[in-house]
């Protein structure tokens, strides 16, 4: 703790408030993303994805000598996307009635393996949409919520606790209670980081990273051997109690015993709509975006920056908490300590938001991409004859890393685009 003063130029306050807006160097990441969005639109994420897959393919070729295209095709089929190509003439039961209508795809998973795989992909799509929206919402306020994982975990912990206790509650209320409890827990968890940011200016990245690990260890503590929420009957298994049958979500496609697609799917779609409306059609969304573009300007405009930091984090945490809660009531029904330690849905959410450019539509699409990668490379779905699933799941991580790396380098893409525009302008000027 000895040693001279760290700052060789005197204390920073001499420089006045933090204000160097020199040529957009220090503009917040959110505002730069917005800029990139206007410049590149969907082109940048597309290029990014193609580049990432290209490099991933090279890795496959270099290490195993296998044709990357065959591998990617196997992943594609493992994710069940070939279901859309199996067009025929089938019957689809209309919900709540006994009548059937004509449908071009086979929805019966005893006849179509692709349907089974696609259900798995969509099951993963649901939490990825939520965690993606969580990260995206905070981004729009200029905050980087890296703590989606922790908020997801507290959400699932609360949902499993509510879902496995209170047997006197009737079915639907029980489901809603579990989901709301999870959402509130996520909001509170992220709210801590938002509060710290709003009150003392603690950087949200640091505090959310710390909260992630606190959540992980709290989860291990609760469900570990001898922990307060550990299973009542299986004394030597570090797992929670199963949630009660009436607090499980209904499966609307596929067999509940084979992990069919649950109705949380529609909640995810609703969340996408809510996200879009909140951001684009409400005062709250306007203020959040204003703070995200330029907090100083927003302050001059009479918007409370501190309040919006807190609100944005809390809403962001609500999305992530919902992801955890819906995973519990939708298909997991219990958590063990291994899930707590190894789950990475919240982290993948960051990649989803970045690739989706923080828009509802983008999050839906990039969520589908990552969900497909996760299911397509799982041991259950990927044909081991073609490619080892253990290898492929690491390939997923690699592609994920590359996507985040390239999307983060928006300046590179911006400058490329700028260069092209300039060149075009010159080309127009010279003949004149």
């Amino acid at each position, binding site marked *: 703790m000895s040693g001279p003063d*760290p700052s060789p130029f005197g204390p920073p306050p001499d420089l006045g408030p933090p204000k160097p807006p020199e040529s957009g160097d220090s503009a917040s990441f959110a505002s730069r993303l917005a800029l990139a969005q206007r410049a590149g639109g969907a082109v940048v994420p597309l290029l990014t994805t193609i580049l990432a897959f290209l490099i991933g393919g090279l890795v496959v070729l270099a290490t195993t000598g296998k044709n990357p295209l065959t591998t990617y095709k196997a992943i594609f089929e493992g994710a069940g996307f070939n279901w859309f190509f199996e067009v025929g003439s089938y019957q689809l039961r209309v919900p709540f009635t006994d009548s059937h209508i004509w449908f071009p795809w086979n929805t019966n998973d005893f006849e179509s393996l692709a349907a089974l795989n696609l259900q798995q992909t969509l099951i993963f799509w649901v939490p990825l949409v939520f965690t993606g929206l969580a990260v995206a919402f905070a981004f729009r306020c200029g905050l980087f919520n890296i703590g989606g994982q922790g908020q997801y975990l507290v959400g699932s912990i609360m949902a499993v606790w509510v879902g496995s206790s209170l047997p006197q509650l009737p079915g639907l209320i029980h489901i809603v209670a579990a989901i709301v409890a999870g959402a509130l827990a996520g909001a509170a968890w992220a709210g801590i980081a938002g509060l710290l940011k709003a009150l003392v200016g603690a950087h949200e*990245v640091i505090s959310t990273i710390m909260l992630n690990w606190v959540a992980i260890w709290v989860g291990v503590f609760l469900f570990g051997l001898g922990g307060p929420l550990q299973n009542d009957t299986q004394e030597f298994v570090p797992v929670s109690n199963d949630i009660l049958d009436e607090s499980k979500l209904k499966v609307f496609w596929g067999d509940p015993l084979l992990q069919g697609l649950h109705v949380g799917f529609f909640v995810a779609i609703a969340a996408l709509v809510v996200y879009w409306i909140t951001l684009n059609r409400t005062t709250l969304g306007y203020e959040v975006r204003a703070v995200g573009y330029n907090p100083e300007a927003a302050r001059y405009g009479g918007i409370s920056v501190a309040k919006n930091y807190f609100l944005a984090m809390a809403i962001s945490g609500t999305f992530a908490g919902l992801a955890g809660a819906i995973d519990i009531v939708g298909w997991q029904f219990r958590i063990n300590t291994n899930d707590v330690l190894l789950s990475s849905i919240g982290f993948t959410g960051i990649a989803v938001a970045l690739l989706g450019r923080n828009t509802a539509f983008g999050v839906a699409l990039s969520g589908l991409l990552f969900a497909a990668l996760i299911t397509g490379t799982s041991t259950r779905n990927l044909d081991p004859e073609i490619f080892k699933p253990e290898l492929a799941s*690491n390939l997923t991580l690699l592609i994920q*890393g590359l996507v985040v790396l390239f999307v*983060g380098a928006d300046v590179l893409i911006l400058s490329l685009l700028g260069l092209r525009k300039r060149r075009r302008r010159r080309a127009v000027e010279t003949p004149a």
Partner: protein
Amino acid sequence: MIERLLAKLPRGARAIAWVGILVGVLAFWVALPPLAIRHPILPILIGVVGIGLGIGALSRGVRRLAWGAVVIGVLGIALGYLATRSSVGHLDQVVVWSALTAAMLRYATPLAFAAMGGLFSERSGVVNIGLEGMMLSGAFFGILGADKLNHWALGLLCAALAGAGFALIHAFFAIHLRADQIVGGFAINFLAMGITGYLFIDIYSGEGTPPDVSDIPDVHLGFLKDWYFVGPIFGQLNLMIWLAALTIVATWVVMFKTPIGLRIRAVGEHPRAADTVGISVYKIRYAAVVLSGVLAALGGAYLSIGFVNSFNQNMTAGRGYIALAAVIFGNWRPWGAAAAALLFGFSSALAQRLPAYSESAAVLFQALPYVLTLIAVAGVIGRSIPPAAVGRPYKKQ
């Protein structure tokens, strides 16, 4: 020399607060072996004295330290009371000071390496969330090198190169492309996890690393063997632990006693001013980030070929983030970060031994570093002030 040290000691009310803190710790300590007082009255009395000293200092206007003394006094009473209530057998099993200290050093070593790396990077103005990934790459390429080249020193070299490679990617995106540094670092973590996991499965095909990999040797200090307390701790420590201590000293010297350190800090505080006086901001930042990758990777290599002698997918399990926390908790200073690494190492060591009491409560000690860092960034105990230009890309004019 001694006079200069004495002049640095706290005086007046600050001294009272410090004594209060020490007394608060003492309240817990008397209830532990070797003293193991069995009656709760003594820890309570000592704790009350500590609280009294804290309040005394508080009335003289020392706020933070005094509150620290009060809190530690209360904790000392509570923990001391708990210790007197538990059986002596358990206490003896858990609190073997020499073993606990040695374990603390073992757990703190990877953290210290990575924290020193993080310090260089952050002081030069580049946030390095990628420490975790660089550490993981060091752990894997360290054991891979040691296995294939049959010598641990070559393993360390491989680890350092791998860490430098990942750091170079981070540096290129953060400095030249001016990408967001947090996103970039995060991508490094994903990349490192994917690449090490992929190669691990590809090369060792799921059977794990061979058991006979050349590992980093321990340093045997025979003459210490019969010394009370010191012998069991320092008599047989891994080479890397001593290197970590050396690294900490070297970091302090370089950062605060050499022109290079001054330049690094200048670039991290006010890059434009540094640029004007002829310091190359880009060069300094590149060097600092690459160095941080090398150091983090060495910490990771200690994990795989010095500590557990095997590799597992994602074996660093968040240690890079704890190292980052140590940097922040230590207020971006070498000694502070080292002290934080020791504290976090101690809480890991305790978590390893506490299961004698309760399996589940021990786990909570794993969360301690993160909670402490949260409290630190919340500004409750002291205020952590990052380098002024950290996280901001610099654009040459």
